[in-house]
Structures are given as C-alpha cells and as structure tokens.
C-alpha cells in the first residue's frame, strides 16, 4: 500500500492509529484519580510529542542513515520558528505560509551550513555543526535581538502589520494562529464518565503532518537514495570507488533533515507563536541526539519513541511535587508514607533531570539498540514461544525498523 511493503504499511498504520487515538491512549486515568498526574493527553504535550517526533525523524535521516552526527540541528528548528513567527507578524495568522517559509528558510540555512560542515567527517563534522549552531544561538540572544527579540523570544504584538490578516481581533487582542479560520487552539473536550479526553485542532494538524513526514521518511529509508546513505555510513571509500560522489548525497540528507527540523520549528511556532532563542542552544541539539539514540538510531520508529520518552519526563515528572506524592501514598500509615515520599522525592519535581540521567544510562547499558531493541526483544520472546521453526528467517539479517 502507498508503495510500501507489508511490514512498513503495518508500521505506518499502527503509528497512525496511535497518533490519531492519542487523546484516548495518553489519558488512561480518570481525571480526578491520583494517577491522573501521569496523563499526558493534553494539547500542549501531545503537540510536543509529535513535533519533536518530526524533529527526531528528520535528524535520524541524517544520523541514522549516513552516520553524520550533527550537534547543531536545533539551529534549524530555531530558524524555522523565527521564520514562522515573522510570517505571523508580517503576513497573516494562517499557519500554512508560516510552515512553508519555515521549511524554506531552514532548508537554505542547512544548505549553507551543510556545504561547509560536510567538508569534514566524524567528530570534526560534529564540532563544525556545533560551532555554527552556538554562533546562531549566541547572536540570536544578543546582537540579533532586532530580529529575534533575544532573551524573551520573538513574539506577536498588537502593532504587527499582518498585511493579509487582521492586526487585532474585535476584542482588541492579538489574533490566534489558525488554518484557514480553524483556530489551532480550539479543543473539543469529551467527557466520558470520570474520564475526559481533549481533541485539539492544532494537535491533529501536527499529527497529520507527522504521519506525512513519517511516511516520507519510510519512503526515503526504503529508496535507492536511502540505500546510498546507508552505504555512506558503511564505507565511504567503496562508495567513491564505485563511482558515487558521497558529498551531494550527504548534503541532500543534511538539507532534508534540516527542513524536517524547520518544519518542526514552524509547527512549534504555529502551536504557540513565540520563538525563544534557547531552542537553538547546544543542549537543544543534544536533546534530539539523545532522543534518536535513546529510541534507536537508524530505525524508523525509534526517534519517535525517544522523543516521546524525553518529552514525557520533562513535562510530567517535573510537575510531580511533594503534595502529589503525599496524596499517592496517603493510604499508608504516616511513617511509611513519609518514608516513601522521602525516597521518591529526589527523583521527581526538581529532580526530574536525575531520573532522566539514570534512565539514559540504563537504556544504553542494557538496551544498546535503544527502546526499539526492547520492543524487538519482547517480540522475539513471543515469537520464540509461538514457534520453533523460524530458525531460517532469524538467521538472515534484516535492517531494523
């Protein structure tokens, strides 16, 4: 289907189903229950899941396929966000031109940085991309404030021209981002018994774009071009002695993944029209590297899992405070309750970094292939139980998902 083989089609369908049903899946706990803290089915986080999913999918096209580890990819995300916000300021609040411009500008930026950085490989390449991104961040924070609004981040004001849209709403506020009139923030809330599920227009726009990006990524992975990229990772010498020029291939991959990052940046600005300089900092670039490795570099689904994993921790664990801990353990005797709270306390709330760091180490030590490997192991366990006769197939190496 859609030019994919059965396995990829199945994967795409599963991802599509999960994404489209995310408002249910991410809100498994009734709103008033103590476990509701773990619900992630609210618009902001759901949007973040898929937007960072797009970012990581794109990063994986470069890193997973060619092995070039860019440490400056956040710069493209930032550039995309700035372009999109400028579009909202100058043109209109429609997200389509903003997203298109974000992809265009970040693509151009990627051509420029990629052309220079790809003259080197290995860690030299990583440091070149890091240097470009850090320069962009430092300048955006200071000298380029007229374009980027520095520390605060570029935001909309009541004085923006918006030549094709309204400058202010009838009530005198800044208009909100929309897709031909469909406001990105509009949300349907469905109450079902003790549960409530939120269906947000912005989320579904992001989700559809993410599925499209994912589909394109699958096609790239399975295309001759994708094979060439994997060949570059495997053996550049053989590549050039086979009559292939690695440079345009890597540059193309770099620009594609830069545009994915720009798309993610544009969507981020469309969901929340403020572009902060921090999203270009090296820690942000490092985050997408971590997402990809954590999920499983070079696999199709891995980066999305990694993105979800990290964003979940950042947004859910950081919000757990002692009050909530006490409410969880309230059923226990006081002494126990306090002891448990004291044990859990360092790992949640302001300690969410600690939990994340420990999990990084655990995953990489015990699951060298990232979260995807965990899935594969579980699947293998089931398969082995089901039948013993698959020895022929499992001996064959197959590219991981």
């Amino acid at each position, binding site marked *: 289907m859609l030019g994919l083989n059965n396995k990829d089609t199945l994967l795409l369908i599963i991802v599509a189903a999960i994404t489209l049903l995310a408002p249910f899946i991410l809100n498994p706990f009734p709103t008033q229950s103590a476990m509701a803290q773990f619900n992630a089915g609210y618009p*902001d*986080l759901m949007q973040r899941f898929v937007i960072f999913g797009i970012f990581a999918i794109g990063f994986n096209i470069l890193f997973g396929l060619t092995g070039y580890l860019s440490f400056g990819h956040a710069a493209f995300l930032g550039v995309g966000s700035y372009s999109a916000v400028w579009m909202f300021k100058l043109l209109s609040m429609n997200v389509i031109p903003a997203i298109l411009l974000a992809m265009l500008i970040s693509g151009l930026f990627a051509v420029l940085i990629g052309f220079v950085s790809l003259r080197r490989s290995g860690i030299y390449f990583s440091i070149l991309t890091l240097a470009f991104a850090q320069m962009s961040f430092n300048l955006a924070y200071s000298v380029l404030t007229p374009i980027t609004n520095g520390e605060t981040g570029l*935001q909309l*004001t009541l004085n923006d021209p918006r030549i094709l849209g309204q400058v202010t709403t009838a*009530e005198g*506020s800044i208009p909100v981002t929309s897709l031909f009139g469909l406001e990105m*923030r509009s*949300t349907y809330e469905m109450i079902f018994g003790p549960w409530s599920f939120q269906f947000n227009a912005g989320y579904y726009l992001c989700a559809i774009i993410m599925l499209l990006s994912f589909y394109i990524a699958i096609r790239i992975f399975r295309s001759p071009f994708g094979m060439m990229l994997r060949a570059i990772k495997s053996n550049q010498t053989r590549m050039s002695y086979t009559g292939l020029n690695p440079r345009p291939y890597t540059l193309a991959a770099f620009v594609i993944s830069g545009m994915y990052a720009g798309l993610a940046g544009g969507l981020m600005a469309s969901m929340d029209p403020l572009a902060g300089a*921090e999203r270009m900092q090296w820690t942000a670039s490092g985050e997408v590297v971590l997402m990809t490795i954590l999920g499983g570099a070079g696999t199709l689904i891995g980066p999305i899992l990694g993105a979800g994993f990290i964003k979940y921790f950042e947004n859910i664990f950081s919000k757990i405070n002692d009050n909530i801990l006490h409410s969880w353990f309230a059923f226990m005797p006081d002494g126990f309750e306090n002891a448990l709270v004291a044990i859990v306390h360092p790992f949640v709330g302001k300690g969410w970094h600690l939990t994340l760091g420990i999990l990084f180490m655990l995953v990489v030590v015990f699951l060298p292939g990232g979260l995807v490997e965990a899935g594969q192991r579980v699947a293998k366990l089931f398969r082995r139980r089901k039948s013993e006769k698959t020895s022929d197939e499992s001996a064959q190496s197959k590219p991981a998902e």
Partner: protein
Amino acid sequence: MTRTNFTRRGVLRTGAVAGAGVALPTIFTASSAAAYTNEPTGGTVTLGFNVPQTGPYADEGADELRAYELAVEHLNGGGDGGLLNTFSSKALKGNGILGKKIEYVTGDTQTKSDAARASARSMIEKDGAIMITGGSSSGVAVAVQDLCQSAGVIFMAGLTHSNDTTGKDKKANGFRHFFNAYMSGAALAPVLAAQYGTDRKAYHLTADYTWGWTQEESIVAATEALGWETVNTVLTPLAATDFSSYIAPVLNSGADVLVLNHYGGNMVNSLTNAVQFGLREKIINNKNFEIVVPLYSRLMARGAGENVKGILGSTNWHWSLQDEASKAFVKSFGTKYGFPPSQAAQTCYAQTLLYADACERAGTFNPCGIAEALEGFEFDGLGNGPTLYRAEDHQCFKDVLVVRGKENPTSEFDVLEVVEVTPRAQVEYAHDHPMFAGGNLGSCNPGA
C-alpha cells in the same frame, strides 16, 4: 501494568462508542458554556506555580515555591495566618478564595522561555489552573505573560526586573509586584551621589540581553542626571563565566566606579573577578574605586561571599525590615522553614495574596473582574509600605530599598543591610515614560 492495559482497552472501546454517537463532545476555549478559561466548578480552585526548578536559578525557584506553599496554607486558613493579619484589605477570610479551597500545581520553567510556556500551558490545559505565577527572569516573565494573555488567565509575575515586563511587553492579564530597572536607578542614584560624590566616572559592564540593556539604560540615565559621567559601557556575553578580560581594562579607562549590570551567576562571577583584580583597593582620580551592583539578590549574593561587603545595590524587599508586615512574614516563613525568606519569596507571597484578595473583592475568578479589582488598587501591610497597582501598566509602585553588603554578618543569611528606604514618590514615573514606551496593554482576555 496489566491492569492499566485493561483500562486503556476499555477506554478505547467506550470512546469509540461515544464517538460514533456524536453525542457528548463539548467545545471549550473558542466559544463555550464557561464564561472564562478554566472556570472552577467544584469546591476547589487551582493555581499554577511556575518556577525554575532546574538550572542556575533553581534555589531561587525553590524559595519562591516555599513562599507559594506558605501563601496557600495561610489563604486556606492554616498556619499563623501570616500577612492576612497585616494586609490592609480585609476581604480574605482564610477559607480559600471565594469559599473554594486552594489547590496548586507546580512546574519547571528551566529559566527558558520555551520550557516556561510549555509548563504554563500544561497547567492551564491539563490541570485547569486559573492563574499562573512565578519565574525568575524577565525573559520568562514576558513569555509567560504573553501566553496567559492569549489563554485568558491571570499572570502574577514573580521575580522580573526588566522595564519591558510592564513597559513595551505589558499585557492586560499580567501584573507585576516586583520593582524594575528604572526604579533601581531612581532609588540608587541619589544614594550613590551622597556616598561617592557627584563627580564620578562610571564604567558599565552589562549582560548582553534585554534585561541588561534596560538596566544599563536606567542606571546611566539616573546617574548622569546627578552629574556622573559614563566612561564606557561594555556588553558581556550571557554565557561568560570568566570576566577577567572585561574587568582588566577598567582601571586603565579613567573610571572610578564599576557598575555591574549582571544578575545571578553572571553577577557572582563578575563581582568575584572584579574584587580579585583588587579594584576596590585602588585609588583612581584621588577617590576610592567603587563597585555597584544595581540589582541585588541575597540568595545570589551569598555566592559571591565576602566580595559583596560594602557594595551598594537595590532590592525589592529584605527580611531585616522592621515594619509589622515584614516581621510577620519573616516569622511565618522562618518558623516553617528555618531560615529567612528572600525577596523572590516575598514578592511571590504578596502576589498570591493580592490575587486572592482581588478575587474576593471582585466576587469572581473571571480575569477581567480580577484585573479591574487590581487596577488602581491601593494597599498596605504586605511588607513594602503603601503600594499602588497602577492601572495603566499593571506595575506596583512602592518603596525601594537601597542595600549594602554587610561588613560583619552574624549569620549566613545576614548578607545585606538596608542603607535607605527610598520613598515611593521618588521612584515613580509616567506610564508613557520613554523607557517604557512602545507597548500596548490591550484589553483583558477572559479566554472565552
């Protein structure tokens, strides 16, 4: 885990049935039954405390959070009642707000605009927070204020000192109790002139971002008005940790005062470096060389250790103040936590009380009603003397403290001493003052 899975499957099934019936969905935000965003329906009301919990300002954030928890306790009728007893408005009864018990959620701003907004959005969308407060930098304050404006909730700013928060970036749904760079300049300049004379040459080192610039502008204007000369102003990168290359040329520039427009880690490092270079032992132009730190934070000043001794600066509030309200606050806070509160804690506590009081007086949680109640509100008894929430820009006007690093501290908290309480009249300015121009308050947004 298995149980969770069963539940989830159950949800999926029932959800599908409900979806097929197209019966239940209701719309909210754009046009809904609720009169405003997150209108509290049950017996509780949720406030969102959005403070830095990770990153360099984590300690400041922790202190803010302590203050919020204390405020909630007092508002819900617990503890010793704190400033409810001294507050000039007597609308609060210690039974929550409008009879609803206060609950709160917390989040981590990471001192990043993006993360702060994400955290605030999750409080509004997931937890149903009706008010967001907190923060420890102007960038975050402006970014979150903007978010609250568009989401239709009230934002009570925490620690934010930039002129822009209630200047060019002011918003109808945002309110600031903390003082600002202009006030620092206006309060500090006369003291500087009195202590160091009017014939001084100043050299500014300024953190190269929005807050730094507004502070430099304010201090330069205020000191030059009193006869000082500004020899040079140099921008330093925010990421700088070693300021030696910026400080070394100061002595040779003919300046005899160094003004450090830095905050937090930058301030600690630049001040430490400056003292290391021995600037304070030098005699330039036949005068003792002096260093000024216009915005002091006691928590951060501790990081500079002995280097702060004798150095002048300004602050919003200090625990050694002897008015009844300050004493009451220090007592409540100190009894609960074992150490005195910081200025960040005080402003956050005050903001929470002010918000609750405005709800009571307005008789509603509707942001527009609250804004109306806060605009032009005159109050006293929160530790800063008689205070006005100005309607035009939602900035509080109150006395500003000029402080000095204490020479003989008696404890690790005893870092600063109050030199002068600059009266409110001296730091007031017109709301369309050029340093604050270019913004537009807009109209209040209830979000519905």
